[in-house]
């Protein structure tokens, strides 16, 4: 997740929406946004699951 982009996102959201986005910040950091190939794990890439869980009602 690119924290700069996230910061900009929070700036234009309502307070409630920003709180929801902040929930998404629990996801693991990846050094590159929109960059190269995926890492060489042969397991489950958990980023989407983590992101979805942070938005669960």
């Amino acid at each position, binding site marked *: 997740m690119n924290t700069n982009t996230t910061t900009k996102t929070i700036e234009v959201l309502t307070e409630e929406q920003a709180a929801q986005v902040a929930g*998404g910040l629990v996801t693991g950091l990846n050094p590159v946004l929109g*960059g190269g*190939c995926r890492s060489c794990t*042969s397991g489950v890439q958990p980023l989407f699951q983590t992101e979805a869980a942070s938005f669960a009602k």
Partner: protein
Amino acid sequence: MATMRNFPDPPKLGIGIVWWPGLDPLCRPAEGLVQVIETEPEVFWTQCPASNRGFASGLPAAVRHLPQPKLLHGVGAPFGGTAAQSTAHCQTLVADIEALRPAWISDHLSFDRFWPDASGNDAPAVFTGFFMPPAQSASGVAQAASHIRHRRAATGVPVAFENPVSYLPPAPGEMPDSDFIAAVAVAADCGILLDLHNVLCNARNGRQSVQEFCNAIPLDRVWEIHLAGGASQRGFWLDAHAGLVEPELMDILVDILPRLPSLGAITFEIIPDYVAGIGLPAIAKMLGELNDIWQTYIGAANRIAAPPSHNTPALPNAIQPALWEHALGAAVNGMPAPSLPPELASWIGQADASLALYTFLAQEGRASSLVMSVPRTVRALLRALGEADTRALLARFWSHTGPAYTTAEEGRKFLDFLSITAIPVAGLHAEMLADLSSLLRPVS
């Protein structure tokens, strides 16, 4: 034919870690835990929007603060498939090598793309979305050895390959895993990156035992060992890089070290997502144990006798790589299957649990890459639709569009798909435009 080694032994570097920024506290030299930094270079590359398939590397700048020697472990041009390394990939890798001067580089003995049309025309390759096991046959050996030799010639540095993990049952007529590894190493005259967790996964998932595998590969060619923690999924043990090294794997390491005269590094792999849950202190403690093991190894290394001359195994050629890659790639991505020999077709039918696992892993990889490449769009969808309906939308996307090579391409493809799909989510268009703007931002 006995093996011939036409390369010097690599330097004895020590304990390494596949580096991510969050692991920096463990890599401070004063900690004495990490003597070599391994990186996956492509993860630090950014696609240049203006030059098709060109890359700008941020790797040298990202690791400049780390004084340890560097090793590069590729994840973007594996050796195990029909497809050759692209010119752009080669150029960017060579630039990283010139900047970081690794003692050796490595990549995977897997494949990541295939051609649905075997007629040899100019149709583009289709990406699998996941590293897949190679065709273990004489043709597969020749193909991998050719890629490795080319990589060495293009980069000017020693090259090792990593033994693959496979969640497939043994295929009819294929070479045993150890014979395939041995044959590739000899044919390419290169080093082996022995991923012991991959060997353990393969054994637990019904392939060769750890002992049988390790007894049958040329151990004097092992330059590096990979260790990782795994995870259970759908009845398989996965090389998930999701935890610490378990005691059984540590025992395997201790047992095999006195048989490795050419070992240069032992590297621990964990993906960033799991670091917080495990905690840096626990990882540091384990790295300390590995340092103790390394010191014991170094103390005895000059007394390790070279293993007996290794004879190359028989090379059955029952499986043609292009057909193998097409069959697996199509099965994993829901595409029409090619015409297969009866024995292989029957095996594919019996491997449905393995292939379903690969499909799941590829799709979770694609979904996670969207969180990185188009984060605002994904959040907008999850906020408005919830996980179940967002996943349903992703399933439509996956049936419409195959996997992309890079995270950025995957993001752009998803935005293209959404732009022709009616999604009743207020504000989605603005988030998509913001993500697109980020993806198209010029690379500095």
